[in-house]
Structure formats: C-alpha cells, structure tokens
C-alpha cells in the first residue's frame, strides 16, 4: 500500500511526533508498504494531491495534527486516514468540551471550571477564583485546555497559587482548566478498533506528579502492563474507558487517561492520537495483547480503511 506518513507539525509536541513518525515508518517499511514521509508545511496539500496515497498515517500530536485540522483536510482530499475523525479529534483536544460530553454521558470525570484568557483579562473573571477553588476543592490541577504531554500542568494547593498556575497553563493555550485533584493510581486504557487493550499503570519513580519526562524517557517511570487490578476493578475501568471513547465519538484508536480513586475510576482525558514511540503506552498495551508493533500498525491501517 502507498502510505503518506504525516509527522512533525508546528505543535510543542513536534519532537515526540517525529519519534512516533520514525518508529511507525520503520514498521510500515517492514510490512512492505511504500512510505512517503511528510511534515506539515505549505507544500502539504500539493504533495498529498500529487502522490494520492491509499491512506494517510497520522503520527502527529497536539494542535493541528490531533485537533481535526489535518483530518478535515484529508476528508476534503478524499484520502482515508488513521485514528479518530474530525469531530472526535476536536472534542478530545478540548479538555473542557470533552469533560462536558463525558458528564452528559454519565462518565465520571473530576469537577472543574474553565477560564479563558479573555474572560480574565477583559471581564474581571479573576474575582471568581475564590468561588472556583471552593467549587473544585484543593488541591487542584491547573492545565491548558488543549495541550498534551503534561506541558503546562501545575498542582495548586492554595488560592494564592492560582494566578501563577493559570499564567503557566495559559502560556500553552488561551483557555485553562482548574480541575479537582484526584489521588489514586494512574492508568491508561488504550482502545484499538473499539476494543480495550490491557490496562497500563504508570508508577512514578520520584516526584508526585507524573510529568513529561517520565512519559518519554525510558526508565523514568515504571509501567506495569497489565496493571495489577482485581477482576471487578478491571471491568469497571474498561467500561468507563470504553464509554469515554464512544461518548467522544472516537474510531480507529485512542487512549483514555484514567485516575483510579478509592471510589472508582475518573476519566482525565482522551488522547485522539496517543504517542507511538518505542516507550509509548498504546504500543505497550498492544504488545501485552499479543500484537507486536508491526501488527499494531497494520491493524491501525486496516481500521482506517474499513471506516
């Protein structure tokens, strides 16, 4: 098959994307496909149009690649692509919109409020911080509405820290969430073609927050797959994760980030295009399900074609 592999882009996760892209390219070549590697740039549409690939493999993360922009373009060009469709990408990329959708579908997600930079700057929204903190409770997590890789995420333990944490979060997006902190185990449930793969648990090695470093650096956090969960627990986590995947309208694949608290799982977010690097969680989960990297990549391609 002739595959256009899209990687790089302009998001802050460009570096991760380049690594995802490289790993996937190797797999595609090993599978005997013809691969045309493309970065996002002024020549993108021209190149896609002239090479007319059978399918586009999207190994992009963050804005433009994961938010529906590229997906919409591929629909216009009538080129099938991997991963969720335009609307699902949009819903996943916007953590606030995603959480409203989850709530509407009775999927548990922590309490939150959303602030836009404009509301704070122009409409005096800062005078509601105290009320917001009361509503979500402390500690809370401040994070940009659309960003990945834990960039711009800060834990707040005191009202006084809200402005600083929001400045950080708003450096990555023009909207930010204050979300209630969930203490518990950090789980990632990858879904491939509508079925859950074995649950991965991320066990932080040093600090309390599981940050970007741990996510992409081998050995900085330890991962357990399958996570050691009871049967009932596993079933509940999978039910909630699959519910989130469906509520947001995902297809192909996605990864659902879940905190498992005392009183059950809470969905933090759904990643429309999870990392596909050597150490990423979706490939780990697939491996645990008996699919090696190549087989996983082939399956992703197949899923994109029978949509």
């Amino acid at each position, binding site marked *: 098959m002739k595959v256009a592999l899209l990687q790089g882009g302009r998001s*802050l996760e460009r570096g991760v994307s380049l690594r995802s892209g490289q790993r996937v390219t190797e797999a595609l070549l090993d599978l005997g496909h013809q691969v045309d590697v493309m970065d996002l740039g002024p020549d993108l549409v021209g190149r896609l149009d002239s090479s007319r690939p059978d399918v586009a493999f999207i190994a992009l993360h963050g804005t433009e690649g994961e938010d529906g922009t590229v997906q919409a373009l591929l629909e216009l060009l009538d080129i099938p692509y991997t991963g969720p469709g335009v609307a699902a990408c949009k819903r996943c990329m916007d953590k606030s919109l995603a959480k409203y959708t989850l709530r509407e579908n009775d999927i548990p997600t922590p309490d939150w409020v959303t602030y836009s930079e404009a509301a704070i700057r122009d409409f005096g929204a800062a*005078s509601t*911080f105290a009320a917001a903190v009361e509503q979500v409770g402390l500690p809370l997590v401040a994070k940009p509405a659309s960003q990945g890789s834990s960039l711009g995420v800060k834990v707040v333990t005191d009202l006084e820290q809200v402005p600083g944490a929001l400045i950080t979060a708003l*450096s990555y997006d023009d909207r930010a969430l204050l979300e209630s902190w969930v203490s518990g185990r950090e789980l990632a449930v990858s879904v491939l073609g509508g079925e859950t793969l074995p649950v991965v648990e991320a066990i932080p090695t040093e600090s309390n927050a599981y940050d970007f470093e741990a996510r992409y650096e081998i050995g900085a956090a330890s991962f357990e797959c399958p996570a050691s969960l009871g049967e009932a627990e596993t079933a509940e986590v999978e039910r909630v994760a699959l519910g989130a995947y469906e509520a947001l309208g995902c297809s192909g694949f996605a990864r659902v980030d879940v905190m498992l608290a005392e009183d059950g799982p809470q969905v933090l977010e759904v990643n429309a295009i999870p990392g596909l690097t050597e150490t990423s969680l979706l490939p780990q989960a697939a491996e645990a399900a008996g699919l090696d990297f190549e087989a996983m990549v082939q399956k992703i391609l197949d899923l994109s074609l029978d949509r």
Partner: protein
Amino acid sequence: MRSSAMRDMMAITARPEVISLAGGLPDTSTFPPEAFAAEMHRIEKTAVAEVLQYGPTEGSNLVREQIVEVMAAEDTRVDAMDITVTTGGQQAIDLITKVLIDPGDVIICDAPTYPGAIPTFCSYEADVRQIEMDSDGMRIDLLEETLETLEREGKRPKFIYSIPTFQNPGGVTLSLERRRRLVEIAREKEILVVEDNPYGLLRFEGEPLPTLYSLDGGNYVVYLGTFSKILSAGLRIGWLVTPTPIREKVVLGKQAADLCTSTLTQDFAGHFFQSGRWREYVAELVEIYRTRRDTMVNAMAEYFPHGATWNKPTGGLFIWATMPDVLSSQDLLAKALSRNVAFVPGPNAYVDGGGTSSMRLNFSGVKEDEIIEGIRRIGQVAREQLKLYETMTSTDEMRLPPSTPPEEDAS
C-alpha cells in the same frame, strides 16, 4: 519541566518560520567561498590520500602549531606538545570530565553555566556546585565560601569549570582582579581550574584581559579552546591544553572515543590558519557581531517590559536577560514558540532549576531584522503575561466592598 520536555519543545525551532535566538551559531555566511575553494583545490592537488587517512590521536602537528598561534593572539604562550586536538570544544569538556571525575566528585562552575556542559557533568555523575556571577563574573567571595563549606564536608572539588571571557550564557567577563585571585586560590588549594575560552577573540571593545592559563603558566589551569566561533562550528575542531600526566589520560580517553579528529577538517583548518587569513576573518566577524549586539540591546530597550534587566556584553555571542520575577522563562518560551520565536530558558544553565525568570539570547547567528522582530515578539508575550498576572492579583480590591460609600453622581 525537565530536559527532554525542553528538547522536544525545541524541535520546533528547526522549522523555517521560527526566529531562533536560542542557538549559539556563528555566522558562517560571510566565509569567502573562494578561500574555501582554494583549500579544497590544494587538497585535491596535494593531499587526497592523506586527508582520507587516520591521523594521530593528539591531532596533526600543523593544527597544533596553528593553535599555538591562535592562543598567542591572546597573549597566551603554550607548547604545542601540551595540546590535544579534540572533536569540538564539547569533546574537550567531555574528555576532561571523563578523566578527572568519578561519580560523586565535586565540580564547581559559574551560575549560570554553559548549558551544554551540564549534561556532560551529569553523565559522569558529578556533584555540581554553581557559584553566582555578577557583572565581573564569578563571585570569588562566594567561591571561597563554597570551598570552606566543602572542606567542612570533607570534600575537595576536582576542578573549577569557568568561562571567564564573554561567558556563555551570562555574557559577562571575569575582572582582572578576580582572575588573579582565582589563579591564586587554585595554586594555594591545589585545585585545577578548567578555563573554557571559545569567545576570547570576539571582543567588540575594550582591552583584552589575560587568560587564566597565561596568569598561571599552565600549572593549575587546563585550557579548552575551539575553532567553532572563529572559523566554523561544522569543522568540529577544538582543543585541550593540559599538563603531561593529564594529557596522557586525555589521549587514552580520546582514543577510546573516536581515535582521532577528522583528518580532512584538520587539514583544512590548519592550512587556513597558516595562511594568516583568519585574522581578517575574525575581524570581520567582530564587526558583524558588534552591530548585531547593538541591534539586540536597542530592541530590548524598546520592547522589553518595565522591570526586565539585561547586560551589554563587550564580546561573544550572548545576552542574558532577566524578566520580572513573576514570569517564568519556560512559560514564556511556550508562548513565544507559538509566535515563532525561541530562546534558551534560564533553568537550562543551572543544575538545580535556578534562573527561572532569565533567558539566553543569541545575536550572532541571526540577521538584524530578525533580531528586532524576535525581541519584539518576546517583549510582547512578556507584557501580555505581566498584564494578565497584574489583572489576576489586583482583583482582591475588586472583591472588597468599597470602604466609603460611593459618592453620589452630581449630574
């Protein structure tokens, strides 16, 4: 946020639309193509077999002789025999650390220090202690305090790593008095000083200061040099000047690392320096960089927010700027990247996450109009963040009931 997050964010700076003030690149665009062609022609005629061959681990004699000349331009006399040619100054840092440091050994260095040295020191598991600088470079009073503290802990630093001239990233230069004192301390306490001097010849104004090596005579000072900033960073030629016992270990280390530095690039550089044309070339670079420094400083005065501070370096490639302390340079970088401009955030130059409001700005590798535009955008995001922060933190009053009843509107 730690190193890999930074690295990944910095991946965007490779895109053509990004104005990167983050690099440490010399401007190689003015190197005369004829001079390049002439060297290549000479090689073609006389040295093909030789440059395609391995060379001695310590470096070619020609290059070592030329290094003696280059160092003499800074009034520093060395013996060619004490020189080991390395694959860039970066390898010199790596080799000296490899040779001298066992896990847990203490290295003292400037704060902030060369961001590229930190991963090297960390990879050998050194215990890095940084000494704050002021406008005269490393504060020797603080160095002495640290040495006392270490002595009480029963530790002796293995070496003091410093960039005394046009420091990267601080842009400052160690004063003559402090140079003397530093060398004295080294002698009294028998501690090695590693003097890293890539920028000494790139002086825009003022009188040159003696290198630490020349003040000490090479007893307690190890000297690191490079052609990267005065000729080409792509040729990858640097060097180390060390006393014999250390040199032998360095050569063994280099043998293990890469056998020898490229024979081809050594031949190219050796002959280029031998021709003497480098003096003129460096003088041209100094002109270009001085203008760019002025452009950057002027743009900062125009666009940076009130409360930001920076220095005006008298040489080198970098300006170190510090924003009002409510701003984090990492946050600022994220926002700046969305406007297609990059810089090095301060914490990259510290082992312990210091420098949170500071940034390193490079002026050598960027054309004037881009310097102005880059600084304008950084100033703009900084102002936006400050304004937002002020809006958020001044709202207490908004929530408090007015202390006196509002006055009746007279109209």
